[in-house]
């Protein structure tokens, strides 16, 4: 299949390109950018007039809910959501049921996901067996099975010695470790940021120090062990400051933020909206501002959807009892564009955080439209819009605090390895 994408505005942040250029695809790869290679006869011409042509998006956290939570979502439903959202590569956290702590489970997931039109799936393996924080998983085996990093999802390792050894072991093989920083004791029963809103609503709070204390521990152990550390979903201004300071002292830590924490604060809990129950909790407006700036400046390496489809039953309960998480694969691009617009950022800079920068964190050769790269491409209308409704969301999870809003940008076409995975949006 040879495809010619013509008349589009090509934005390839990895190559610093933002120009009117055609893209030529053959055998699932980019074969030329600008003018056609000699003798190129396209089977298909995609007219991208008025559209941005950019690398397929790379999402650092998308829960596909398989295995174990098929009543919340299935690989099929979430892959349709990914393609509809322009996402062509995604990392999935290990908190499935059972958790991704055995090579067989990872192989099965990779096998199920190997399907034309499905995004490339990069599992994050469990760092400890059952995510229980006690015994190490067979990381080398899991790596061979396809895990690109190791983490604990939302389950902290309580025993610091286990954490130290897990990091040492991972460092032995130069495996990256992705950790969400949350002290297991501070804010143990908490469901919202410990501040005015939680006080007003009578919700048990989680102080920002629950995150910063855990980050301090992780950074110290990262220094000692030399492990490649990535801090996932940071939520507070203080956390970002600590990570920046650590880098100055030579710890090469990376970090990401979710689309929810980039746009929302604890005030969005409003009247106990269960869709605003997230992990980590939405924090103060000042935290959100710091995260928005940090991402713009590149101090936060990547933006992710933290896609977490939750079934209605698990959300139709009082706020604190509601299962945390929000669906997000289809909102990653619109919310990136919204942030870019509000921050007056060049489109290329904004898109870098969900393409090449995210790919760099993942350690995969994606997020670029350079000649020779896999033909993972997203075509979107920057002047279009996406109305977030239960019907418009392809994900089985309809749980999002953005429900009812109209967001900028509309994906028109998604190519994965040169296959048209999604087309439409008109």
């Amino acid at each position, binding site marked *: 299949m040879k495809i010619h994408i013509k008349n589009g505005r090509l934005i390839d942040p990895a190559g610093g390109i933002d120009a009117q250029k055609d893209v030529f695809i053959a055998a699932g790869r980019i074969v030329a950018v600008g003018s056609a290679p000699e003798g190129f006869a396209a089977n298909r011409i995609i007219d991208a007039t008025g559209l941005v042509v950019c690398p397929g998006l790379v999402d650092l956290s998308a829960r596909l809910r398989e295995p174990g939570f098929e009543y919340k979502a299935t690989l099929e439903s979430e892959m349709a959501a990914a393609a509809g959202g322009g996402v062509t590569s995604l990392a999935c956290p290990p908190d499935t049921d059972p958790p991704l702590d055995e090579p067989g489970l990872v192989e099965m997931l990779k096998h199920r996901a190997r399907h034309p039109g499905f995004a490339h799936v990069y599992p994050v393996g469990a760092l400890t067996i059952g995510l229980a924080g006690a015994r190490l998983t067979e990381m080398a085996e899991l790596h061979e099975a396809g895990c690109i990093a190791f983490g604990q999802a939302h389950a902290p390792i309580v025993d610091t010695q286990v954490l130290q050894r897990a990091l040492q072991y991972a460092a032995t093989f130069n495996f990256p470790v992705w950790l969400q920083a949350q002290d297991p004791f501070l804010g143990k029963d908490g469901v919202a940021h*410990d*501040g*005015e809103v*939680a*006080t*007003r*609503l*009578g*919700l*048990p*709070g989680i*102080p920002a120090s629950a995150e910063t204390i855990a980050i301090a521990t992780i950074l110290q152990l990262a220094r000692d062990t030399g492990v490649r550390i990535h801090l996932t979903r940071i939520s507070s201004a203080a956390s970002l400051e600590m990570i920046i300071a650590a880098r100055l002292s030579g710890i090469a830590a990376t970090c990401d933020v979710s689309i929810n924490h980039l746009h929302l604060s604890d005030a969005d809990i*409003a*009247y*106990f909206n*269960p869709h605003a129950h997230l992990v980590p909790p939405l924090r103060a407006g000042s935290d959100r501002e710091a995260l928005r700036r940090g991402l713009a400046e590149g101090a936060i390496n990547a933006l992710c959807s933290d896609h977490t489809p939750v079934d209605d*039953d698990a959300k*139709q*309960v*009082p*706020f*604190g*009892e509601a299962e945390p998480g929000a669906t997000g694969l289809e909102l990653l691009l619109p919310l990136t564009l919204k942030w870019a617009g509000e921050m007056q950022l060049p489109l290329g800079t904004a898109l870098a955080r969900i393409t090449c920068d995210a790919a760099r964190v993942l350690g995969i050769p994606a997020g670029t439209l350079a000649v020779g790269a896999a033909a993972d491409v997203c075509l979107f209308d920057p002047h279009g819009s996406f109305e977030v409704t239960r019907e418009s969301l392809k994900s089985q999870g309809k749980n999002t605090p953005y429900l009812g809003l109209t967001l900028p940008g509309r994906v028109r076409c998604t190519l994965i390895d040169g296959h048209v995975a999604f087309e439409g949006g008109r």
Partner: protein
Amino acid sequence: MRNPQLTKNGELQHLLTIDGLPREILTAILDTAAPFTEVAEREVKKLPLLRGKSVFNLFFENSTRTRTTFEIAAKRLSADVINLNINTSSTSKGETLLDTVDNLSAMQADMFVVRHAASGAPFLIAQHLAAMGLEHIHVINAGDGRHAHPTQGLLDMYTIRHYKRNFNDLVVAIVGDVLHSRVARSQIHALTTLGVPEVRVIGPKTLLPSEVEKLGVRVFHDMREGLKDVDVVMMLRLQNERMKGALLPSPQEFFKSYGLTADKLQCAKPDAIVMHPGPMNRGVEIDSAVADGPHAVILPQVTFGIAVRMAVMSMLAGA
């Protein structure tokens, strides 16, 4: 976003929290309650305002006192009252909160009086009723988690107005476990809305929620200092389980620092009143000499509570 307890016309649709209610509505409730206090003194303690209406007391958390006062209030208004203690029935069979609500709605309920251990549960019910097109069913929050206990807040305001006549020159202190107290939150919102110029909270740092000063209160950790020249002392109940979570060392030490004794009460104005939402822990947050003393208005609070609940029910029912 519209306050879910108000109709489009700004009238009271449900009573879920005092936070965000305009002063006029609070005053209207207190004014409506005044004549109801006399009903209790009649030979026939009944008014026909809620005749033919079904009031469901939905108690997902144990309570004898609050449930009883709601029951009496509804019965004095001639409503049919159905009491459900749900922690002992449906939820143990796996039924969800909203399934329970759907079932009771199908029994032609007119009003739900809800107590639940989770903050926000009555909001969830009200939103669900709206989504089901059942706006005619009113919800009264009878206490949700740490969030709100609006009828308690209102009966406390009624009591203060009864003894102090107006709100705009008072200093009021709320003492004790503010962190876990839905009563304290409702009191704070009611006092600030009604124009009390100085609301104080007094307690150890472990029992005060973060940024509580943003609710419009002054924070004191020294009780004598906090009680200086106050007109009203509102004591809070201290649950015994607070001793377990490293919040306090012992009931004795709490009593020493924050228990209301006659001696500490000397710091307040000579005509100060002492209130308590009950049930009291004598010797923990309040000394018997004060609880039974001349400043205490704790039993009148209970009496006024019935009138205030009658007022809320009759206003919601449009009677």
